[in-house]
């Protein structure tokens, strides 16, 4: 099994969720995060003094899937999260050794 972690622009969340649902992903977990990268922050003035906003709001989605869904998943994310502008984000894939569904105790691919 794989754990796909993707960082996207917040307003793309609904699109990505729908794209993933369509290919049969049943669950996902979302976290508000702040990103630092090629996309630069901005500078504001407050009472004449500067303050720099280094970190930009991003959303992190974690999805556990069976190995078979991996390519479809990557495609779905890439297509749905893409705006073509810098800061669109990243996808990270790690290997999952085990998954357990707490309610039932099921493990492995059945649990995702």
């Amino acid at each position, binding site marked *: 099994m794989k754990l796909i972690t993707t960082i996207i622009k917040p307003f793309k969340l609904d699109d990505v969720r729908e794209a993933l649902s369509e290919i049969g992903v049943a669950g996902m977990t979302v976290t508000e995060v*702040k990103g630092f990268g090629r996309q630069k922050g901005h500078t*504001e*003035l*407050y*009472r*004449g*003094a*500067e*303050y720099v906003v280094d970190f930009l709001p991003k959303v992190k989605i974690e999805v556990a899937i069976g190995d078979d869904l991996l390519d479809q998943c990557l495609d779905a994310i890439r297509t749905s999260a893409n705006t073509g502008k810098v800061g669109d984000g990243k996808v990270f894939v790690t290997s999952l050794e085990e998954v357990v569904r707490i309610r039932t105790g099921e493990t492995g691919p059945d649990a995702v």
Partner: protein
Amino acid sequence: MEDLIQTNYALDTFYFLVMGVLVMFMACGFSMLESGMVRAKNTAEILTKNVSLYSIACIMYLLVGYYIMYENVDTGSILPSFGTLIGAENTVESTLASGGDTYYSKRSDYFFQVVFVATAMSIVSGAVAERMKLWAFLIFAVVLTGLIYPVQGMWTWGGGWLAEAGYSDFAGSGIVHMCGAAAALAGVLLLGPRAGKYGPDGRVNAIPGCNMPLATLGMFVLWFGWFGFNGGSELKLSNINEANAVAQVFVNTNIAACGGLVAALILAHIWFGKADLTMALNGALAGLVAITADPLSGTAFWSMIIGAVGGLIVVPSIVLLDKLRIDDPVGAISVHGVAGIWGILAVVFNNPDATIVGQLTGIVGIFAWVFLASLAVWAILKFTMGIRLSEEDEAVGADISETGIEAYPEFAQN
């Protein structure tokens, strides 16, 4: 005739009390303004300071301040005479015998005066916010409201030497507002800036206030209360001339705030590129402070200009103080001090009785006394109990270290 004296006495007393209640509410305005302009982690503490300082002011002024300021004052005197409490109420007989010269309750006078003391003290809390120890501040409040303020108040309103010198200050641009700003400045100088406010290379870092609706609410409440502050300072209402005067004061007070707000907003927009709300709020308050020295003599149009100049002054003043590394989170020194001085000077434009010499004498006299006396008190506090939070307490926030309570315990902060 006697019956009408009674009615007029009742009307003037009522007017005084209603105006006083409006001023009392300014304590709420300062609390909201300040808690909107500090960071979340220092909010419960600034609230505690505000509710406490109001209470301390009322108690100290009852115990000794009112006596110092108004009782037993020799005309033209500099040094106060001491005593306690607020004297006896007017009797019906003496009032009637006065033929209308005694025209309001002495109790209502204490009430109206005491809310001014609290206002002066409120100004201080904003400037020293986010890094001063709670109890050191409250001890300072005891001295300012019990001694420092009443002494200089006596000088003008009690009939002391500044009154003799021709210093003219209708509702207290100097006596209340610049007084508070001078005490604040002394405190800020001994206290130093908040950690992280100024970078090593002359850089000024913004530390945004955490809650703009609260700051705006505070500004509105202050504006609302200011009708009492200036409107009540006419002291009498019960005939056509006086009623017209009070109405003029209301109109001028209001339009000066408008002028200050619009001027500061436009200046900030031109200078900074965006319509900085906090500067607009400070602009309105600067307009109010500026007109306070004489909201009666000028026309509404002229008052709008005086207020607008106040708003134009306050924006660069805030920026300049930052350049000088005088850290004032809410802009109190600029609003109440700098705009206050402008207001005191502007009296000469409209009031033929005021002279530039008299006004300068007032500014220098009040500022010198309040600043130096405050500096002494702050210094004693600094070298005894300490006035500044430890570095760690400041980092974690004054709420935890001073009050043990978080202002917004459930809201995630980033």
